């Protein structure tokens, strides 16, 4: 029977004890002032939990969380004070409006690179702030609106002090549990991979854009909820709720508490909201001490307070899930992938120029050529990381030209990268990520990931940190991750680079076994000793064009290939 409560010596146990102590303090000892600080800490914890989803999990530095907070605050403020609407009406609307705004602005801005995305989201916050200040008939202008009622629903009013603190922290508990449940599930893991390696995530079938948009909108819901509760706590709403210090507070809470962790958001909020109060006796000097304390916290605990806890009290190793093979699907025979006249130029350089080739089920095709001949670009075009300028790609009889990487991955194309890199975390987690869109649960995905690792002889690596593995093992794990996709087409970009002869032989055998299972395999490789015995057919590129293709021996003997790439064998 699984243990329901964490052991007290685990991070979860420590946090549970700390939570109970905080609860006892609030229930039994806290003065009205201390309860107010706790209440405000709860409000910021809720906003920071949402921010952890978009920033901590999805890795998008959204500076709009303060704007969502402020919009939620203004919806509650305007509807509550101007129109006298009750909490059951204002609260959902305070979540809805930030959500709608997040959907509308998320679609264009989430395509931007990280720093441009941050600037764009900051711009959203500034626009909303300007509107709040310059629409006085609606928002009360720079003065804001006073007379916002407290929380009251169905005839029950929540007075300030202990009841209000309880209400706010109940919202934090509910929001925290929901975020924790989402973070540890398939969605949370997918977001983590999007954060750590968006290209790999896309090639593993994850819709990066949709995932980021979902994270952005969920964070907006939390921001709106926090803003609404803030206004019920203060009873006024003014442009300060939209100003940058709110965003800075949320960001600092997330960093100090521990990026991506719900517990980090709560710990960070409680600490950061209390720190200024502890130093208040220093009058004007308190900001200096407060700043120094924050700096110290970041230097001493770069991974946040939860990071320190996890370092001091490492969580127990997860119980290994037994590998389980997936149900093999019947694979089509014959030509699986057909590339016709594919072209791609970068400025004036024609990286791929009218390439035509086909991959057969159960066959291994080698792709060779000098550096810069277009091999990796061709793989990127076929796997959707680049969009072709011309030509067609047909997969299992269906044209898939210009499809996004995640869509192609779901259609059956898997690939590895020239530089094998795995995200931080266990090897099992890295391979499990490849099954997130296929399996109904994390347990099933882990069992199938174990099977993929087993197929490449790397099951024993499961608990190890993938990012810390030597290159050869990383390549093997990457192959397992690609196999876990159950691909119809497998594209391997220099899989033997850096391997010893024994490792190459082992890899060749495993690739051959994969092909024997009905997969069409394309191998880009410079090591002819490794490649030529393995492949059924070779395509040689030069200057983006097909220089030669055919049986390995014929291509290797082709004078044009020798002149352009292989060179004369030493006498």
């Amino acid at each position, binding site marked *: 029977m699984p243990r329901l409560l964490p052991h007290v010596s685990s991070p979860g146990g420590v946090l549970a004890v700390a939570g109970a102590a905080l609860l006892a303090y609030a229930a039994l000892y806290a003065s009205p002032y201390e309860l107010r600080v706790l209440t405000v800490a709860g409000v910021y914890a809720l906003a920071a939990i949402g921010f952890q989803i978009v920033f901590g999990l999805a890795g998008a530095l959204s500076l709009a969380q303060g704007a969502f907070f402020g919009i939620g605050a203004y919806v509650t403020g305007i509807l509550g004070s101007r129109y006298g609407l009750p909490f059951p009406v204002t609260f959902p609307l305070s979540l809805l409006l930030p959500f709608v705004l997040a959907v509308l602005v998320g679609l264009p801005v989430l395509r931007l690179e990280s720093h441009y995305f941050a600037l764009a989201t900051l711009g959203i916050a500034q626009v909303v702030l300007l509107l709040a200040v310059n629409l006085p008939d609606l928002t009360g202008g720079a003065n804001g609106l006073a*007379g916002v009622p407290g929380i009251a629903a169905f005839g029950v009013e929540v007075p300030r002090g202990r009841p209000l603190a309880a209400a706010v922290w109940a919202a934090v508990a509910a929001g925290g549990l929901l975020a924790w449940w989402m973070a540890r599930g398939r969605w949370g893991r997918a977001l983590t991979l999007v954060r750590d390696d968006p290209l790999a995530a896309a090639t593993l079938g994850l819709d990066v854009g949709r995932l980021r948009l979902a994270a952005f909108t969920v964070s907006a819901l939390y921001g709106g909820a926090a803003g609404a509760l803030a206004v019920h706590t203060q009873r*006024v709403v003014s442009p300060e709720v939209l100003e940058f210090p709110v965003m800075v507070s949320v960001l600092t809470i997330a960093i100090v508490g521990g990026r991506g962790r719900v517990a980090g958001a709560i710990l960070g909020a409680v600490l950061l909201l209390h720190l200024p109060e502890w130093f208040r006796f220093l009058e004007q000097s308190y900001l200096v001490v407060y700043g120094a304390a924050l700096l110290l916290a970041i230097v001493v605990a770069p991974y946040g307070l939860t990071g320190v806890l996890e370092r001091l009290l490492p969580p127990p190793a997860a119980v290994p899930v037994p590998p389980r093979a997936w149900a093999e699907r019947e694979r089509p025979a014959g030509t699986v992938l057909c590339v016709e006249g594919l072209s791609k130029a970068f400025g004036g350089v024609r990286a791929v120029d009218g390439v035509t080739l086909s991959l057969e089920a159960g066959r291994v095709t080698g792709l060779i050529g000098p550096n810069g001949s277009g091999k990796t670009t061709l793989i990127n075009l076929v796997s959707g990381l680049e969009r072709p300028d011309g030509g067609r790609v047909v997969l299992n009889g269906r044209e898939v030209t210009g499809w996004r990487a995640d869509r192609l991955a779901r259609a059956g194309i898997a690939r590895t990268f020239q530089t094998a890199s795995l995200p931080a975390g266990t090897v099992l987690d890295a391979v499990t990520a490849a099954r997130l869109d296929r399996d109904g649960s994390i347990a099933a995905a882990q069992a199938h990931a174990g099977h993929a690792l087993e197929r490449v002889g790397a099951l024993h690596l499961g608990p190890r940190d993938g990012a810390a593995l030597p290159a050869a093992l990383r390549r093997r794990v990457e192959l397992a991750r690609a196999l876990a996709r159950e691909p119809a087409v497998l594209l391997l970009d220099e899989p033997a680079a850096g391997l010893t002869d024994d490792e190459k032989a082992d890899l060749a055998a495993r690739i051959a076994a994969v092909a024997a299972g009905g997969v069409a395999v394309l191998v880009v490789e410079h090591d002819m000793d490794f490649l030529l015995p393995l492949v059924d057919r070779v395509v040689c590129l030069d200057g983006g064009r097909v220089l030669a293709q055919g049986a390995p021996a014929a291509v290797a003997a082709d004078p044009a290939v020798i002149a352009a790439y292989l060179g004369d064998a030493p006498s």
Partner: protein
Amino acid sequence: MRRSLAFLLLTGIISAGPARAETLNMPVLVPLTGFLSLEGTSQRNGAVLALRGAQPPGVTVATDVVDTGTSPEAAVTALERALGRGTTVAVAASMLGTQMLAMLPLAADYKVPLVTVSGTASITEQGNPWVFRFFPGDAVTKEAHARYVVEELGKRRPAVIYQTTAYGQSGRAHLAERFRALGAEVVYEEGVDPAARDLLPVLSKALAARPDVLVLHLHSGPTALFLRQAAAHGVEVPIVAGSAMHQPSTAALLDPAEMKGVCAETAASPVSGGSPEMDRFTADYRAAFGTEPDAFALGQYDGTRMVLDAIARGARTAEAVRAALADGTHEGLAMTYRSDGTGNMAHSAVIVCYDGTSRVPQVVRRYDALSGSTR
């Protein structure tokens, strides 16, 4: 035995000593950091100077100074914290309108009077009996401002440049209403962000509207920037600024020549003198804090002294202090204070002008018993 009794009696007399003074609290919760730190520090200094002066007999009025920053949330937290300690009879409360609006419900819950110099009109429009403003509200100062422009300078085409803050928007609304009542046509209006680093575009657009007077309602820094740029471009249209201009800290940012002919409205100008009591206040202020006092310091000083007078006359509870403030009259250094029934205690304003040779302005016009009403 007799010796022992005598010893015990003596010990008892010594330990009893003089009667212990009752301690009451009047915390000072003002913005010492952020964009209002200069004004907030003046406010703090005024309150502290008053509390350091003669204490009511038999009572010690203690104070804690707490920085409220500029967020309503910090102000409310500071108020809740202050009210949890001892017997608080009044609070010297932030001059920032949004902070006051946030503190008002809590003050009403705790039944503690807030004594402030905030000019934001709406703080005394909430029907809250616990707020007392010892600084003329915008309705009063803008009446003086507009009347001086129209009645004394004879100008009819003002251009109004204001700040996009609570202070600025409130002042703009009152100026517009007052100019309309006086029959003047506002030919240009523009709100300026406090962070703006170049006001020349605004100045150029205002001049293009061909005004006969430039009316400013800006914070300290933007006021100084505007005047410097106007002087640099040889603007000859007269300028009548808002109360920020009277602050010595604003004048310190400018050369006297850049202020030549510039006038400003304010509640008072302590550095301009006017009475021996005012001169003594200014001297004490300089000695205590090493800076020049302004109208905010003087207003908070007067308000705090009125609270201390109420205590001296027997008020020992917050309710008693509130009643004294609501019903009493106080002869302060700046003016005579009396509530209009909503907590507005100050009903006078002055116009000061700079002669171009000194940073100390002269009071050129005084307006008393202003109602702030256009009706």
